[in-house]
């Protein structure tokens, strides 16, 4: 058999590699380009309506003028409320699943159920939240009902990311701790969690991003069409940014005139998510340092 000319072979290999890498490169740049075009579109359309008054005033004149202050506060309340519920429950469930349950049928069932929970459309969460929290438990359309519904939605995200993080903690740390006579709980709380904590915060980031933008779950559980006052308790209704955006674009009193307010609202929503991410990232770094110094 005649071997291929070495020079030609090398050339062919190089060409194949170059083509493959160029495709990957273009696709990666395309992702960045898409993100930037969305951002710049929203900034271009919305920046003009952003002002101090816009984020501190009540909506006026059929929501074509004035600000979106109550919607911002409403969204912040809902994010905080849902995290207060989903974060501890999710983290504890993940600890149970990763540190305590033995491999077997029960673990498989819990895991599958978590995945199923993640796959339920958000509008179904909304319906469920309405029938359970709003009607059955009698919370009414309220921040409490909305937070719990959003919390349910965030739960699988928190569970899954926390579980991945716990799985990534090297087993020899657990064995070393148990080998010194520590109990399983001491091992989990004093060794595993401190190692995993900074990355568990990442789960929090992801779910904040998800929760703050959701519209469907709050539709029937908390969101007010127009409510120019701030909530005073968890049993109050509230406005929220994503729902406000939806209202302004579909069923406001004057859709054309409220267009700039809609883009402004979108921009504020994006900025809030961004700030939340930066904050969580800062926390993660802070805890990361603390863990090493402990």
């Amino acid at each position, binding site marked *: 058999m005649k071997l291929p000319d070495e020079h030609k072979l090398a050339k062919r290999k190089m060409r194949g590699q170059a083509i493959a890498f160029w495709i990957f490169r273009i696709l990666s740049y395309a992702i960045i380009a898409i993100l930037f075009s969305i951002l710049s579109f929203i900034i271009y359309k919305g920046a003009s309506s952003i002002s101090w008054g816009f984020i501190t005033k009540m909506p006026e004149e059929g929501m074509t003028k004035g600000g979106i202050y109550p919607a911002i506060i409403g969204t912040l309340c809902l994010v905080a409320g849902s995290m207060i519920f989903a974060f501890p429950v999710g983290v504890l469930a993940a600890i149970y699943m990763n540190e305590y349950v033995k491999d077997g049928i029960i673990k498989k069932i819990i895991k599958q159920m978590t995945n199923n929970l993640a796959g339920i459309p958000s509008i179904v969460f909304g319906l469920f939240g309405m029938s359970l929290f709003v009607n059955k438990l009698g919370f009414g359309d309220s921040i409490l009902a909305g937070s719990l519904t959003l919390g349910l939605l965030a739960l699988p995200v928190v569970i899954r990311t926390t579980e991945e993080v716990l799985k990534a903690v090297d087993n020899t740390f657990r064995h070393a701790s148990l*080998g010194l006579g520590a109990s399983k709980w001491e091992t989990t709380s004093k060794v595993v969690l401190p190692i995993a904590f900074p990355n568990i915060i990442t789960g929090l980031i992801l779910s904040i991003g998800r929760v703050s933008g959701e519209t469907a779950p709050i539709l029937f559980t908390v969101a007010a069409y127009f409510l120019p006052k701030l909530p005073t308790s968890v049993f109050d209704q509230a406005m929220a940014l994503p729902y406000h955006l939806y209202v302004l674009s579909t069923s406001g009193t004057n859709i054309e005139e409220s267009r700039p307010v809609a883009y402004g609202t979108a921009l504020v929503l994006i900025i809030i998510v961004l700030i939340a991410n930066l904050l969580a990232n800062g926390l993660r770094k802070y805890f990361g340092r603390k863990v090493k110094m402990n």
Partner: protein
Amino acid sequence: MYKIESKNVDFFYGPSQALKNINIAIKPNTVTALIGPSGCGKSTYLRLFNRMNDLIDNTRISGQVLIDNEDIYAKGINVDSLRKKVGMVFQKPNPFPKTIFENVAYGLRVNGISDKKFIEERVETSIKQVALWEEVKDKLKKPAFELSGGQQQRLCIARALAIQPSIILMDEPTSALDPISTAKIEALIYELKSKYTIVIVTHNMQQAGRVSDTTAFFYMGELIEHGNTKTIFTNPKIERTQNYITGRFG
């Protein structure tokens, strides 16, 4: 009187048998090396002594493992107190993400000791025992991760010594270390022998020859030969042992 004895020990991972009828008796204050090719069961056997295999689901043991004449697999045995008595050092140095001091103090704290003075004394004694004190005495509050690999491994040994075990298990303790750190650990093993009973798993024949009093050769879950290290290395009874030691297989 023996420190550790195993009688007719079989061990299973699910349906597959990892250890077959192992009988070994280990005298106190000796170093026993477990050698054999990868997958021969020597690490599994080591982990029987502090019931570390309990952590793996679907495992099963039959036979008896006696420590100080007590069956450690009998009903009513407190695994935590067993593990207090049997310290362990792992393949990769694995200090906790805590300070140097807290790493050594950890075992004391989880065993309910809170007397500050006592903890400080135990920490200092343990670090001195592993000849690390001069290197770390000024940075006890620094994270253990800042130490070199060899120092970390000695710290892990100090961590095990702090709770005053009588047996120390070592699972390839030097396989991740450079030759100088390895030599230090080997010297340390020799020192520790006067106070502890040591069982060490190693892939390094020279190491087994240097540090151990008796050597046990495992092959495919069976104990092929156990005896005086010198005899095993110079005049083994069984040919397969000789072949392994001289590097003809494995």
